[in-house]
């Protein structure tokens, strides 16, 4: 019995292959986008975890100092007192264009040496000069070929841009022979050593959870992606809901017959649910494949973003994780359940005999639109409240969710009202009919239109955010990159020689020198700047005190970057602790794209405190038309490698390149979401198809050609899409404001001014119209080609 019934149910798909395709495709798309985001997040998290595991220590308590420097003697003394510690010296090296983070550990005491994939390293190889660097192939490929480094051993699990080595090698390469960055407290301690507070009062005991690691820093970014993934999933579900609804609707007579022929309701429900399950599994599997492909395509850019924006290490390759597969299939099943719930519910409550009479569409629709609008307003209010009540980023996202979902829910009401107004103003019979008909169609289309609204608003919001950011960023680069040439010498001696050589030849030579310190618990740079008009006139300050630059040069004040100001809540006039240096903050400067806190002092006051910091980097001011010649002369005079001198344009294009990569993923998800939304309209229109004919047939009978009806079908869809786009604009702008003023501040630590881009809106509006037209194209074409007999059947049908 069940088999026969099942075959009868399935025969529907054989006759409606397009519908089956749409259903599977919709579910695959939804699962795919969601899974892609999950795969990217998972990969990133795994990278952080493997980096954390490889670089051990992250699970161990640490001893640090505010300055980020511990004298070697302190370590020896603590050891002599019995404390089992492992010293670590970290630092960054610049090798041409590449930056290398060096992690030097005492390989005798460090808990875990990164795996070298079976390649043996003899103790004397790593322990005696020149030593060995352990790094991944990615890191190796980024390093200049002529770099003067110890031989490299591949350690595939190390994060990109990071080299692991013995502390002796690190001390040599960083030229910091007698200092350490931090001490790990090893798990096995002898009985009864003296308390650390007594023998090392200068050191801060830092539990592992307080260390700002990549996972914490990038949480916001991943939350962003997840939000996007969920949005895509929701939009995709609109499609599934549409097709499942259609399939149920079309098979209603068949199911009624099956029930009339004696198939128990339970069996029928089970069969239908079984069918949904099979479809969900098939579509889920396809979606996983799709998600994998999308993720693999997007991951390199995401990795670049995370590295560029947060300095977080993420490998560019994707691995398949069982948990990911399970969660992807789970989402597909859940999605199908949500989308099919209404259909199944209707099925189980379906009366055996068809009830006569029409559904009171006008009443019901208007009533439900009003209820939805009210709950939408409630959601918006809740979102705004959440923004005030919930902490940080969570509150921001709650606000976004409330705004978006609330606005989506009010959409049917707003559209209905707009259409009512339009129909009142129109006189021509065709247009009176169109508006009236649109209102009748609205309930069936509203889900798809909500999806479109969300997609459009997100597009406007995210687009405005990205474009505002780009505009601000470009302007900021212009302010910040004032020197015509940037130079990196091989060592301090060469640096000094170059500075001397340059003095008579350039307008100014501005040293770029920095000490590594700890700020807000994170490793940070304290820069020193010369007293020069380059900084006075151009440095991009967001807040300042009077006489700033004079006082900076005298060592009376420092300026800090916006991220630090916001995260530590320190503003001009307040005092900051720069590690044994309490000083007033005189200004706050914008510092986009930098994950770390940063501060700038006068060069002379900095050197008073940190006399040994390296002096290898310089900005060179010179008339732009002489810059090329000077760079040539410099290379020749000091035999400098190519990467040693970069011109302003080079740095700018590099920075902008990183910036663009950062938002490639956003843009891609944006386009995909919009595509899914227009697909949702298409499926809704197809779903409505059977209900449409009784509306269209009389009009046709009354003398409207099928061609005109088809054109009006398209026009209707375009009008709805256009109306939705008009409503999406203010929502998108609010979204942009929330992103710029709330989310960005929480996620990145800087607030951006909002710029408006009406031309982009116009494009998006046209795109929405196009989406509407494209979605209606298939139904319209079908209508155009419909034989009159099919229309005539309407008049004979018992519907």
């Amino acid at each position, binding site marked *: 019995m069940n088999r026969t019934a099942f075959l009868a149910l399935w025969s529907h798909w054989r006759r409606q292959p397009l519908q089956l395709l749409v259903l599977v495709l919709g579910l695959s798309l939804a699962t795919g986008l969601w899974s892609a985001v999950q795969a990217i997040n998972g990969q990133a998290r795994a990278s952080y975890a493997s980096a954390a595991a490889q670089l051990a220590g992250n699970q161990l308590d640490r001893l640090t100092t505010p300055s980020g420097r511990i004298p070697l003697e302190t370590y020896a003394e603590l050891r002599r007192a019995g404390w089992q510690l492992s010293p670590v010296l970290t630092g960054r090296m610049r090798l041409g264009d590449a930056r290398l983070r060096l992690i030097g550990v005492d390989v005798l005491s460090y808990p875990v040496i990164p795996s070298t994939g079976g390649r043996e390293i003899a103790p004397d190889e790593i322990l005696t000069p020149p030593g060995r660097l352990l790094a991944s192939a990615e890191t190796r490929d980024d390093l200049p070929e002529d770099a003067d480094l110890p031989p490299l051993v591949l350690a595939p699990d190390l994060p990109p841009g990071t080299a692991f080595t013995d502390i002796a090698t690190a001390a040599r390469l960083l030229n910091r022979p007698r200092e350490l960055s931090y001490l790990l407290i090893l798990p096995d301690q002898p009985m009864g050593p003296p308390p650390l507070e007594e023998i090392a009062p200068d050191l801060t005991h830092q539990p592992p959870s307080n260390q700002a690691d990549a996972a914490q820093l990038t949480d916001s970014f991943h939350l962003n992606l997840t939000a996007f993934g969920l949005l895509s999933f929701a939009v995709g579900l609109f499609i599934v809901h549409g097709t499942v609804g259609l399939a149920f609707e079309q098979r209603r007579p068949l199911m009624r017959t099956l029930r009339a022929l004696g198939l128990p309701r339970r069996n029928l429900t089970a069969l239908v649910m079984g069918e949904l399950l099979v479809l969900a599994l098939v579509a889920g599997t396809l979606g996983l494949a799709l998600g994998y492909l999308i993720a693999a395509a997007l991951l390199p850019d995401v990795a670049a973003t995370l590295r560029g924006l947060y300095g977080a290490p993420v490998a560019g390759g994707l691995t398949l994780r069982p948990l990911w597969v399970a969660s992807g299939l789970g989402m597909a099943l859940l999605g199908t359940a949500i989308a099919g719930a209404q259909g199944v519910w209707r099925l189980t409550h379906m009366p055996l005999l068809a009830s006569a009479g*029409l559904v*009171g*569409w*006008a009443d019901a629709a208007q009533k439900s639109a009003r209820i939805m609008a009210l709950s939408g307003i409630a959601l918006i209010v809740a979102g705004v409240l959440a923004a005030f009540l919930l902490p940080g980023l969570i509150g921001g996202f709650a606000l976004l969710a409330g705004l978006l979902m609330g606005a989506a829910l009010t959409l049917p009401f707003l559209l209905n009202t707009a259409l009512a107004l339009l129909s009142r103003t129109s006189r*021509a*019979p*065709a247009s*009176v*009919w169109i508006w*009236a*008909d649109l*209102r*009748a169609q609205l309930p069936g289309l509203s889900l798809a239109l909500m999806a479109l609204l969300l997609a459009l608003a997100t597009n406007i919001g995210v687009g405005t955010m990205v474009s505002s950011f780009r505009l601000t960023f470009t302007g900021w680069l212009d302010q910040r990159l004032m020197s015509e040439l940037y130079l990196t010498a091989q060592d301090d001696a060469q640096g000094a020689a170059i500075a001397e050589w340059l003095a008579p030849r350039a307008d100014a030579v501005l040293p770029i020198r920095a000490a590594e310190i700890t700020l807000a618990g994170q490793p940070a740079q304290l820069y020193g700047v010369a007293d020069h008009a380059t900084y006075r006139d151009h440095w991009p300050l967001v807040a300042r005190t009077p006489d700033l630059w004079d006082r900076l040069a005298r060592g009376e004040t420092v300026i800090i970057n916006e991220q630090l100001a916001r995260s530590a809540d320190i503003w001009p006039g307040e005092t900051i602790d720069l590690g044994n240096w309490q000083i007033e903050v005189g200004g706050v400067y914008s510092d986009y794209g930098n994950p770390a806190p940063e501060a700038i002092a006068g060069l002379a006051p900095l050197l008073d405190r940190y006399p040994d910091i390296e002096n290898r980097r310089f900005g060179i001011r010179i008339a732009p038309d002489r810059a090329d010649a000077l760079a040539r002369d410099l290379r020749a005079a000091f035999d400098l490698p190519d990467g040693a001198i970069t011109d302003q344009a080079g740095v700018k294009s590099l920075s902008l390149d990183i910036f663009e990569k950062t938002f490639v993923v956003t843009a891609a998800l944006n386009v995909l979401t919009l595509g899914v939304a227009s697909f949702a309209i298409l499926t809704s229109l197809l779903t409505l198809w059977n209900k449409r004919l*009784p*509306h269209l*047939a*009389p*009009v*046709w*009978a*009354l*003398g*409207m*050609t*099928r*061609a*005109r009806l088809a054109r009006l079908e398209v026009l209707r869809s375009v009008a709805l899409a256009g109306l939705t786009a008009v409503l999406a604009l203010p929502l998108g702008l609010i979204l942009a404001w929330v992103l710029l003023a709330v989310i960005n501040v929480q996620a990145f630590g800087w607030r951006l001014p909002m710029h408006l881009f009406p031309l982009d809106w116009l494009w998006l509006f046209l795109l929405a119209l196009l989406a509407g037209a494209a979605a209606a194209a298939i139904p319209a074409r079908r209508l155009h080609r419909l*034989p*009159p*007999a099919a*229309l*005539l059947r*309407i*008049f*004979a*049908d018992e*519907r």
Partner: protein
Amino acid sequence: MLLEISEVAKTYPKAKQPVFSDISLSLAKGETLALTGESGSGKSTLLHLAGALDQFDRGEITLAGEPYSRLDDKGRAALRRTRVAMVFQQFNLIPSMTVAQNLAFHARLGDRFDAAWVDELTNRLGLEPQVDKFPEHLSGGQQQRVAIGRALAPRPDLLLADEPTGNLDEATGDAVLALMLDLVRASGTALFMVTHSPRIAAQMDRQLHLSAGRLQ
């Protein structure tokens, strides 16, 4: 003659047997005609052909001398907008529009809207209290009255009716039919009605019976 059907043949695609292969009839201006026949005898098809809703394979149909065979899709639509109107068993009102809008719709579509005439129709059909309602709020009899009003609003030459009372109970059906006949006669419109009821057919000027593809 207003409507002239001569030697018309119609076979549906994929069907083996023709519905009919040689049908001829004529209808004068203002005349009322009832067509009866068994289910599936093709009476509705003949009505649809007369209304230019469907195309025939052979023969010719002319309305006031205008041959249908020369009309393309647009021409047929124009004909339906202006000179032919239909009343269906299922009423087939436009559910998204109010009674008033439905009443005016056909006339406006054919650019033959005459407010005074539509008002008169509304009054005579007793629909005045219902004009702002939507069809779903009307009874079957009321709906069919709207359909009749809609059909007559453009002052068509020919009104085609397919079992107009088939969905109504007898009393309501009789009342609606009486109204329709009144209006048809008052406006000088010819009526071609398909019905299975001899009682209703008897109220027409002329009756024809379609059986096995032949008219009797």
